[in-house]
């Protein structure tokens, strides 16, 4: 890419927040702050903050490594040590990074964990990932939180109670022991109130894609927007301020009738509105995005922006039911929804945001997302008669991003959308 990426103000704000977090992490041993490794889906940010800990998200490290073109080397390193070619590349990238000194995106070493907090929501690989990490960090205290799957498309009181009991009996006592800080429910409630506020804002932000043109891209830019709420800032005033600012920027774009900002500037013409299922490819993120915006395609909703929490349907953290609320949050993340729920949610997005098409980016090494995607696609096509597209790539392994294959497939898909538009228009005339 020859063009320097244009950044929205909110992106800069976010960068500062993340840099601050990594800076704090680099000084954790000096400041005495305890470090908690955990995952994005089902992350217990408010509880981590209640105990003044600093979070580390291995999958964020992995995707940042990919964007900095370092993941290939890390993956190779892990594969040298018996990690299979066919498993989650986030895991291998993280393990490889650890083997190479655990240097984070800011160039500073990420501290070792005091706690490995596994609230494995909707992904079995998380479980295996932490089994691996535990062997690398034998001194870390492991906290396992089993999040029941929404197998019957609902969160039952017994599922919630199961989780709450785990919080009371296992999670909180262990956090108290490691940090030496007593559990303060009032403090947790304050964080939860701020979480709710941030969740209200982010819902409004993603809802702006109802406008034509859509002022944002809810997938490629969306992954930046979900950053603060997912990586440890949910439950803080900083996150609320960030989302307020972002919303105001976006509403200004709506007022001016502007489309989304891409790395090469503002998108001039919105030709196709799409809903995308599946995570993006991180190793060639900009090239991947470019294929879409060059064709005038804007993503009006995506499932990936819901991995750290589904707020569209009205669910919010509730300070009046602090631990129950945390339990429900974990159970309500996208990959913890069953397949019919996912289909319903994506169908709602297609209808609500008036999408012209539905595209699946199937990730080779992510079964949590990928297994079942073809069935989902077929059902959505039948239900809504919307044109569906299918491409394949990977999270952070550059070997599985084939630019020409993806471009060819998408070009054919866009041709089909174009043809459909022409037919529709001629029928209307």
């Amino acid at each position: 890419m020859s063009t320097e990426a244009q950044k929205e103000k909110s992106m800069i704000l976010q960068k500062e927040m993340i840099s601050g977090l990594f800076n704090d992490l680099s000084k954790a041993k000096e400041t005495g702050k305890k470090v908690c490794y955990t995952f994005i889906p089902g992350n217990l940010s408010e509880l981590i903050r209640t105990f003044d800990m600093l979070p580390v998200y291995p999958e964020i490290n992995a995707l940042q490594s990919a964007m900095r073109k370092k993941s290939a080397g890390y993956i190779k390193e892990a594969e040298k040590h018996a990690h299979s070619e066919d498993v989650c590349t986030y895991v291998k990238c993280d393990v490889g990074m650890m083997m190479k000194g655990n240097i984070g995106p800011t160039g500073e070493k990420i501290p070792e964990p005091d706690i490995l907090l596994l609230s494995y929501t909707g992904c079995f690989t998380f479980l295996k990932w932490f089994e691996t990490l535990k062997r690398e960090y034998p001194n870390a205290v492991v906290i396992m939180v089993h999040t029941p799957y929404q197998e019957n498309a609902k969160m039952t009181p017994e599922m919630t109670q199961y989780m709450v009991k785990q919080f009371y009996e296992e999670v909180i006592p262990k956090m108290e022991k490691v940090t030496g800080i007593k559990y303060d429910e009032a403090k947790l409630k304050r964080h939860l109130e701020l979480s709710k506020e941030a969740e209200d804002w982010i819902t409004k932000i993603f809802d702006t894609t109802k406008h034509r043109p859509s002022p944002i891209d809810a997938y490629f830019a969306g992954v930046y927007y979900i950053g603060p709420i997912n990586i440890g800032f949910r439950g803080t005033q900083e996150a609320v301020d960030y989302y307020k600012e972002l919303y105001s920027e976006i509403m200004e774009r709506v007022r001016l009738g502007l489309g989304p900002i891409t790395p090469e500037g503002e998108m001039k013409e919105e030709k196709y509105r799409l809903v995308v299922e599946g995570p993006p490819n991180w190793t060639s993120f900009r090239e991947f995005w470019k294929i879409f915006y060059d064709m005038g395609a804007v993503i009006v909703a995506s499932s990936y922006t819901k991995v750290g929490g589904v707020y569209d349907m009205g669910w919010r953290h509730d300070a009046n039911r602090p631990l129950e609320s945390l339990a429900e949050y974990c159970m309500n993340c996208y990959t913890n929804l069953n397949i019919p729920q996912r289909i319903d949610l994506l169908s709602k997005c297609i209808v609500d945001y008036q999408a012209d098409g539905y595209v699946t980016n199937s990730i080779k090494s992510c079964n949590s997302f990928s297994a079942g995607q073809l069935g989902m696609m077929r059902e959505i096509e039948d239900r809504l008669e919307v044109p569906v597209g299918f491409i394949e790539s990977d999270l952070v392994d550059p070997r599985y991003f084939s630019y020409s294959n993806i471009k060819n497939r998408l070009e054919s898909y866009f041709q089909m959308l174009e043809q459909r538009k022409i037919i529709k228009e001629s029928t209307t005339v």
Partner: protein
Amino acid sequence: MLDCRGYFFESCVKLRSQNQGVEFDTKKDTMKTIQQILEECKMLAFDLNFTHSKNWLEKNKNGVVVGYMPIYFPREIIHAAGGLPVGVFGGGDRKQIIKGDAYYQSYICHIPRSIMELALDKHMAHFSGFIFPSICDVIRNLSGIFKQQKIGTFVKYMDFPQNFLPEIGGVFYQQEMQHVLAYIKEINGIEVTTEGLNHSIDLYNKNRRMIDFIYKIRQEYPWRLSIVDVYHIVRAGTVIPVEEHNVILEQVCEYIKGDVGTPQDKIKVVVSGAFCEQPAIGLIRAIEEAGCYIVDDDFMLGSRMIIGDIDATTKNPLESIALSYIKQSQYSSSIYDVHDPKEYRLAKIVKDRKADGVIFASASFCDPSLLDAPIFQNAFNKMGIRYISFQYSENINQFKVIKEQVGAFSDSIKLWEDEPTVA
């Protein structure tokens, strides 16, 4: 249509041409020779029409057939509710996949597509319910596809607890079992009783004890019964009532008490990692033919998941079953293990079985098995336990490369036989 091979193929063609199913009358089993029993088990194990359960259903008008996927499910509760639990382990190399491939990308393991194929081709049309134990994301999402396709009267994703405190995870597990019972009750109206559950637990205890006995005998005298025969016997038990399987096991146990077979110059190995998608029987045979006696394995792990008896004398049998899972489970790639690391548990099996090494056999793209590989291999490098690893798919039936690999492994161990096995 079945795509069978060898004896099974011929038998099926014959049976189909006569419009018959595969059925065995256990009342006559006492009259059967061991060879007849082994042949019957072989046919039962791979009857992808699940004919035995179909016939059972015809005779049991209030019966409910419930399919369960790997790895483990407490079959006792279905039995106590007047049902027949039937293991669904995929189509193996005997079912051509056409429709199933439309549901799964090439980089997803093979078993979900063959299970879909079986379902869409109505092989399991007489099943009322399907249970998907929580073992991985693929099987979990397959439960959703079954729901979406409205296959069966009920579809239950069985969320096994990852919390191992009886008052937390144990209670949750009991609730999960109660959901299954509620589904069955809706169909047949049967309310399970304490006595009924304890009776079912007793039957399955007996079943597990006899399977364990077979493995114990084979540990010392693996030539008495080939691993292929053991596989057929254990797998047959997943598709017939436990009472019938116990009759079979009794005769097999009696048989292998005798000094039968001829020892061969083979090393002893444990096979690990093949707990869900099953290797083709030809692959299992190839391992033995290449110079290895398989003295332990996790092929049909669910039938051996609980180590020892489940208490069949309590007033709360569901609690007993839950406690057995929490306290007496075999190690598994689907159980979070940091409090009881799996590498030491497998090492203990190797030691107890006096095995010379381990064969890590993982289904291609099997996350749980493949993600465990570095944990096992790093540990075994330190412990001095010899191993090899390979991947397979249920539908491959060319084993030349694997056979050579296993043969080389066997030869190398024979050459190093003076070296200690476990440090």
